[in-house]
């Protein structure tokens, strides 16, 4: 698996030894999705519709799942979005603010190449704040390390 990260997105590319049809089913069927993502989803993924549920990951059961299905192109592409307010409920976001999660399916000799892209983090005001923090405080990381040593020492 390969990973690419930037301030705005996470990209995961994974080779699966299973045919596209099987991988498609495991990701777009809401019950199967819930098994590996560790979320109990109330209703299926349907384009333009909202899917709700609860995270089942131990220790995070109080977290709600809210997603809107954006695209479902059979065995090719599945895209859903979630509102940034799900992460940071205290901040007001624009109506259009959304984090996109895209699953791209490609057949390979071994089975399936799955590319997962989560993007839109730059809409989070906190990301901008961190940029401000980084750019305004020269040598911040080195300082933080030094302080860590200082505080733990």
């Amino acid at each position: 698996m390969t990973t690419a990260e930037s301030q705005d997105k996470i990209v995961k590319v994974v080779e699966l030894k299973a045919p596209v049809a099987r991988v498609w089913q495991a990701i777009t069927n809401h019950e199967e999705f819930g098994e590996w993502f560790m979320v109990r989803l109330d209703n299926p993924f349907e384009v333009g519709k909202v899917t709700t549920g609860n995270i089942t990951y131990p220790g995070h059961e109080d977290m709600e799942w809210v997603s809107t299905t954006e695209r479902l192109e059979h065995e090719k592409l599945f895209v859903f979005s979630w509102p940034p307010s799900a992460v940071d409920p205290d901040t007001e976001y624009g109506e259009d603010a959304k984090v996109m999660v895209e699953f791209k399916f490609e057949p390979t000799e071994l089975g399936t190449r799955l590319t997962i892209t989560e993007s839109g983090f730059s809409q989070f005001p906190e990301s901008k704040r961190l940029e401000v923090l980084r750019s305004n405080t020269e040598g911040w990381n080195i300082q933080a390390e030094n302080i860590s040593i200082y505080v733990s020492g």
Partner: protein
Amino acid sequence: MSAGSVNPAPVFSALGDPIRLELVSRLSDGREHSIKQLADGLQLTRQGVTKHLNVLNEAGIVSREFVGRECRFTLLPESINSAQDYLACASAQWDDAIARLKLKVEDQIKGSE
């Protein structure tokens, strides 16, 4: 939520203010500072600075200690490191989820062979 194991929102939100960023910057030497020292040169009353320091304190970014009658603040750098790790954390959670997905789809194929 892909980044469930860290909730950086209070830290992010506390840092979302130029005065508080400046205070964090002044505290980044790791030493204890009095409100008077921290307020020096800022266009703010002592009360105003105290209010901002209390926000940072509630978010776990600074600690507060009374030395005699004086209140002193110290930066807790771990809180900010954890906020910077947010994306890395979201990324790691995808890795976990993908590992479970891999097991799920590949095991079932083996089972049907």
